[in-house]
């Protein structure tokens, strides 16, 4: 099982590396989204209030993640999916996709953070907490979005479905992540956020476990 997962993750990485345009596209998407926000709010460095900075950051990460993960089940054509169906267990496939997509989302989030800090200023006071929250948020986003992209890939009008199916499901994770990151930006004592971190972790666990249990049924059809 573990070996299967590592092989599948390696496959995803190689595939991504071979089609660099997709990766570069999504990276450019983050940078342009941040830049558009910067121009639209008309803010100079440090001019933006902290809650707005925080909300804009997470919304951009959310949309980039939706776009990045949406392709995870459609980029490979039917024949190859059938091949995976024959050689790998569905559990290994969903776990490897979730892990790979968390890495991808984390890269996007870090890039977004970097660009945000450069052009909109960096108000974050507690870096460690902020980054820990990014890791947990990326995990939750990817678990939820991977499952939803699996569902949406079975239906036509994929892009709309991806958005309407994932947004309501992802909101608990998003709200938790936003409030923890608000605490981290204000530099509050970590003990304030512990409760919320645990709830975020619990929601992540619920979503991942349901995805793990349900994916075999989805994969079979």
């Amino acid at each position, binding site marked *: 099982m573990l070996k299967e997962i590592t092989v599948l993750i390696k496959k995803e990485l190689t595939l991504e590396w071979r089609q660099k345009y997709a990766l570069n596209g999504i990276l450019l998407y983050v940078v342009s989204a941040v830049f558009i926000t910067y121009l639209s709010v008309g803010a100079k460095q440090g001019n933006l209030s902290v809650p707005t900075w925080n909300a804009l950051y997470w919304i951009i990460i959310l949309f980039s993640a939706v776009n990045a993960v949406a392709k995870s089940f459609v980029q490979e054509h039917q024949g190859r999916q059938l091949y995976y169906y024959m050689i790998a267990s569905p559990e290994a496939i969903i776990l490897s996709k979730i892990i790979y997509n968390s890495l991808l989302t984390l890269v996007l989030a870090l890039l977004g953070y970097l660009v945000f800090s450069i052009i909109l200023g960096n108000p974050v006071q507690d870096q460690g907490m902020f980054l820990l929250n990014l890791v947990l948020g990326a995990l939750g986003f990817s678990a939820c979005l991977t499952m939803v992209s699996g569902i949406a890939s*079975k239906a036509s009008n994929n892009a709309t479905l991806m958005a309407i199916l994932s947004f309501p499901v992802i909101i608990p994770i998003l709200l938790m992540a936003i409030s923890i990151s608000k605490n981290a930006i204000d530099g509050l004592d970590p003990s304030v956020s512990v409760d919320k971190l645990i709830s975020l972790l619990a*929601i992540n666990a619920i979503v991942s476990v349901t995805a793990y249990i349900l994916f075999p049924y989805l994969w079979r059809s």
Partner: protein
Amino acid sequence: MGLSWWKILAIVLLAFTITAGLLMDVPRLPILNETIRALYFHVTMWFGMILMLVVSVIYSIKYLRTGNLRHDDVAIEFTNAAILFGVLGITTGMLWAKFTWGDYWSGDPKQNASAIGLLMYFAYLILRNSLTDVHQRARIGSVYNIFAFSAFIPLIFVLPRLTDSLHPGNGGNPGFNAYDMDSNLRVVFYPAILGWTLLGAWMSTVRVRLKRAERKMEDKLINQV
């Protein structure tokens, strides 16, 4: 056929809820005044909705285990009735909020959470309609139904309790236990929950039967040709 016992019970309970709910004495409280009667018509909607969603999830699981379309009929129709209850719950809640909080929508965590919950189930309906094959629709619908329910539970039970809310029972506001000094409210409240839920189940089962009859007729037509 006649009415089975639980349908008669539903009629009796609802008649009791409406007459007693509107006529019986309620505790006089500042701000709330007579709107406290919303307990019988608003709060019970959410109880009914959640109970019906639980039934729907159970039947979705049954469908995934057996692949029998009859289970899927139950799952979708109970979700439909639950959505109806949810819409009624959110409208009655907004009316109540207008009189007590001063606004139809004041961005209260509970209001937001229930609106998101409804969005989730509207998305479920759209997902089902965008799939054409019956079996695929049932299977993928069931998968999303269970997945959405597992996100819905933390959404409505956990998150509103972590933030401050104006809603009774949250953020230091007294809940219904504190209002209910003489247990007058309970006498109507518990029967009301049961009555509304039974009504929802009744509506769902009628629609389930309709759906099964339609499928049977379709099968007959196809097999004749």
